[in-house]
């Protein structure tokens, strides 16, 4: 049923209805990415799988979308001086090999007819795990599970290296040792191991992997938060570009999907990023966690529907995934506009 929507006249084999859906979904995903600093690609691959795209196309197009998003975000972070190019270059090798290992796994599973199911189950675990973590931290008031936008304004010298990172730096001293920004000295092998592990995840699921790579950079390598954010994006440009190329060679990248997604997300990311100057992300992070949990359940429902051949369950899963994202993005925009109006009224009253 859903597959019938995929064919028909339009741009690059994608029907006008689907182009509009992708652009709109991209806008929503962009708002979430720009505001929370994560989650840019969490929902794209599962949504494509639920739209009956083959697993390599869903993962490959998801990765190409991440690549395009990373290019745009890196240009911004480069201007802010938040990219450690030395760390990024060292990570590229490990991530690239990891992505290739993940990609090979997808095609291997696809040859056995298991790729869609295994990837969906992995997404259920991933979305559920990250969603539970973000929700728990938000309820505790830690504000964890994303980028601390205020933190990015601090001086790099003000950041303390986490204890666990200090311990790793003192314990693992396998040469060559490298010195990174913020006076961090660490074994290149630690960096490569972190890069490889997150690369496998990226290649297998078509995600940027920033939600794991960033904490890993901070807690395993000891990189200051703003540098971790900027370097992660810089690194995704290369590894994601190469991963997209590899998937593209196997026909896994559909420009009719990626182009409208990117068109919408680039605009949404600007809006979401601007909203962080008005609204404290911690206030609505609990909804973001809830969205990931709903996403996890939705992917599970969609997969059960696919297994049973029940089109209604598949559609319900898709509606839940997209609906949860739309609700949270709408909450971000509504809170932002409300805060702006309140601020303006206060300024008007003061002026009077």
């Amino acid at each position, binding site marked *: 049923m859903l597959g019938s929507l995929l064919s028909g006249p339009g741009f690059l084999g994608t029907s006008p209805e689907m182009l509009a859906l992708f652009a709109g979904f991209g806008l929503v995903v962009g708002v979430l990415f720009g505001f929370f600093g994560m989650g840019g690609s969490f929902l794209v691959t599962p949504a494509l799988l639920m739209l009956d795209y083959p697993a390599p196309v869903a993962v490959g197009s998801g990765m190409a979308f991440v690549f395009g998003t990373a290019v745009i975000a890196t240009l911004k972070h480069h201007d802010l001086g938040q990219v450690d190019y030395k760390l990024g270059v060292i990570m590229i090798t490990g991530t690239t090999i990891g992505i290739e290992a993940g990609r090979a796994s997808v095609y*291997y599973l696809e040859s056995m007819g298991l790729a869609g199911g295994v990837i969906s189950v992995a997404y259920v675990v991933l979305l559920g795990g990250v969603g539970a973590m973000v929700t728990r931290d938000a309820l505790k008031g830690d504000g964890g599970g994303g980028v601390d936008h205020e933190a990015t304004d601090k001086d790099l010298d003000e950041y303390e290296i986490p204890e666990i990172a200090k311990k790793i730096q003192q314990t693992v001293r396998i040469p060559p040792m490298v010195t990174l920004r913020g006076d961090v000295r660490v074994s290149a092998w630690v960096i490569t191991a972190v890069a490889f592990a997150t690369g496998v995840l990226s290649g297998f699921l078509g995600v940027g992997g920033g939600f794991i790579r960033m904490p890993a950079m901070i807690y395993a390598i000891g990189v200051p938060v703003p540098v971790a954010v900027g370097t992660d994006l810089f690194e995704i440009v290369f590894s994601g570009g190469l991963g997209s190329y590899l998937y593209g060679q196997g026909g896994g990248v559909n420009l009719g999907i990626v182009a409208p997604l990117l068109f919408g997300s*680039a605009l949404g990311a600007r809006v979401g990023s601007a909203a962080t100057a008005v609204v404290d992300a911690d206030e609505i992070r609990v909804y973001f966690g809830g969205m990931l949990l709903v996403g996890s359940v939705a992917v599970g429902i969609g997969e059960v529907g696919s297994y049973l051949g029940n089109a209604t369950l598949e559609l319900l899963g898709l509606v839940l995934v997209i609906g949860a994202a739309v609700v949270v993005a709408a909450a971000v925009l509504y809170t932002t506009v409300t805060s702006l*109006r309140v601020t303006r009224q206060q300024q008007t009253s003061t002026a009077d």
Partner: protein
Amino acid sequence: MAGLEIPSWDPETALLIGAILLEAFVLYVGYGGLERLVGPYLMDLIVGGNASAR
């Protein structure tokens, strides 16, 4: 396609990835320009007054 691969040169795929890269650059510059041009007007429209309220 299963198994680890060393990427080989494929002009068609390179063009595809190049098109995504080009789109990203165009969107970055285009939306940046658009934001400067119509941003203040849109803020007035949405917030209902002076954009400097931010």
